[in-house]
């Protein structure tokens, strides 16, 4: 015990104390206390994040990297300070590897276009998986069409786990990029990203990880994963919307062309030619979402302060409890039963459409997501039009899950 503690001492985790920091959770919906089980779509915000954004606008706002006045200096320090914090949070080698984007979607589009335009040629292959969010499918379709490259799909089994043997078979010298989600948003599957990276690198392919779902749930160490690009969204890690992070290996970013043109990303402009700034600024054209970056930096500090080990343990307990209740519920089929799963319970209920369930839950104050979760190929795999998805965050309790299953009982009673 003593030895284990010396590795990483995590603070005490008290869910009541965590909940108290989220003002939005303290409200009634249709005369029921709000039960928020939609953090996989977007997490609620703690006071520290809301206050940080408010304080930034009240006291420190100016444009960054220009202007010699005091406010410009403060805004720049706050913005670049957030970049440094994020770099150390994910164990990046340098803040120069942290590109601020609007979210994971923009991060993936940036790599597909900037890296893809330069590195893909006719006949090359890009590999994604059957469980990707549309954000990690469509950008690759675009670039593959533009470069006449081929998009290959790694299949999964009926538990929602990638078929690693098929992946090995698909890999070849033609494989240039493997873009895979760390945690499936529709199924909760945690993918073996380290193994994927090592296999892909063996054939000389680069690897992008979509970390939108993973970043809020577990410690992200990009050095340990070994990937080349990692993208995640601020609003899912208890930070603001409209801000996210693309991490890329510095030597790769240094060779990549700009994604968008504008101010901030250039060194010198004449009408004949522009010289581009170094990363990350080369990829940050225009005035960035400064307040968003500041808020995200604070959110990440806050999450780190809870202890990511605590967060994972807490959410695993919620998932275990919800899964055991689901198994006892007649007519309920869990979609996504991978061995290694994070805090997402996707299901369907016999005879009741997910959208009817969504409405019934809503009227009892329970917020869940009903739909295809922007992962239509996953729905096709399981032959369902949609599922209900309950996704867990740091503030959820076992009582929240009880409320979910009271909603299920109510729906079954209504539909007889």
């Amino acid at each position, binding site marked *: 015990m003593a030895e284990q503690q010396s590795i990483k001492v995590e603070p005490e985790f008290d869910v009541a104390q965590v909940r108290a920091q989220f003002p939005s959770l303290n409200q009634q919906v249709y005369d029921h206390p709000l039960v928020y089980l939609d953090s996989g779509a977007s997490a609620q915000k703690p006071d520290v994040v809301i206050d940080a954004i408010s304080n930034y606008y009240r006291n420190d706002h100016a444009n960054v990297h220009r202007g010699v006045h005091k406010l410009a200096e403060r805004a720049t320090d706050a913005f670049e300070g957030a970049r440094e914090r994020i770099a150390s949070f994910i164990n990046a080698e340098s803040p120069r590897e942290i590109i601020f984007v609007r979210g994971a979607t923009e991060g993936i589009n940036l790599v597909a276009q900037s890296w893809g335009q330069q590195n893909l040629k006719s006949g090359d292959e890009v590999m994604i998986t059957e469980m990707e969010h549309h954000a990690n499918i469509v950008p690759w379709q675009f670039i593959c069409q533009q470069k006449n490259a081929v998009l290959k799909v790694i299949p999964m089994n009926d538990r929602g786990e990638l078929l690693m043997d098929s992946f090995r078979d698909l890999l070849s010298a033609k494989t240039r990029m493997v873009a895979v989600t760390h945690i499936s948003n529709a199924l909760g599957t945690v993918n073996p990203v380290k193994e994927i990276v090592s296999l892909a690198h063996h054939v000389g392919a680069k690897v992008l990880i979509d970390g939108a779902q993973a970043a809020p749930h577990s410690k992200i160490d990009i050095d340990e994963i070994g990937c080349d690009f990692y993208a995640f969204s601020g609003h899912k890690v208890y930070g603001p919307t409209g801000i996210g992070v693309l991490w890329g290996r510095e030597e790769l970013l240094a060779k990549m062309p700009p994604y968008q043109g504008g101010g901030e990303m250039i060194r010198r402009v004449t009408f004949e030619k522009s010289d581009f700034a170094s990363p990350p600024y080369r990829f940050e054209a225009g005035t960035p979402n400064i307040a968003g970056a500041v808020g995200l930096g604070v959110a990440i500090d806050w999450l780190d302060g809870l202890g990511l080990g605590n967060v994972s343990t807490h959410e695993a307990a919620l998932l275990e409890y919800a899964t055991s209740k689901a198994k006892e519920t007649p007519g309920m089929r869990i979609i996504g039963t991978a061995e290694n799963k994070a805090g997402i319970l996707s299901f369907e209920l016999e*005879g009741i459409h997910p*959208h*009817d369930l969504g*409405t019934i839950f809503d009227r009892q104050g329970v917020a869940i997501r*009903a*739909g295809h979760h922007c992962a239509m190929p996953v729905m096709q795999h399981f032959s369902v*039009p949609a599922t209900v998805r309950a996704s867990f965050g740091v503030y959820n309790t076992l009582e929240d899950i009880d409320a979910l299953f009271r909603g299920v009982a*109510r729906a079954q009673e*209504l*539909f007889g």
Partner: protein
Amino acid sequence: MYDALRELYEDLILDHNRNPRNYPIKPEGTNHSAHGFNSLCGDEFHVHLKIADGRIEDIGFEGAGCAISTASSSLMTEAVKGMKVEDAKTLFTHVHEILTEEQVRDDKQDLLGKLSVLIGVKEYPLRVKCATLIWHTLHAAINKEQGIISTDD
């Protein structure tokens, strides 16, 4: 006790959801069809009409969706089967108005008869598109409109 969910999921709706009428049927002699699809929620239906002498002689629908869209589809087919095309168009207008306009005169509601069960959906703004999908698909079938009809954009 007032039960808002019961207002939406009335027995008639639940019955038509469980046992949709004229489903899954493409009538013999179908000469008008249309395809309705709400991509955000996945409700998807095909409506088939056999129109002769300005009258909907037969109707059927195929596809799948939530209870509201399925029941609305089933009720629609029951209501317009045998109706003059012009009357079906008028009914479409009434249903559309009643489901989408804030204030509706009582006499308008009276026109609907059994279909007035659909009014419960107005308390659920996010679900109105479920109830209207099939009606717009019917309208498209009558007018032989090509392409996919949607009510969720």
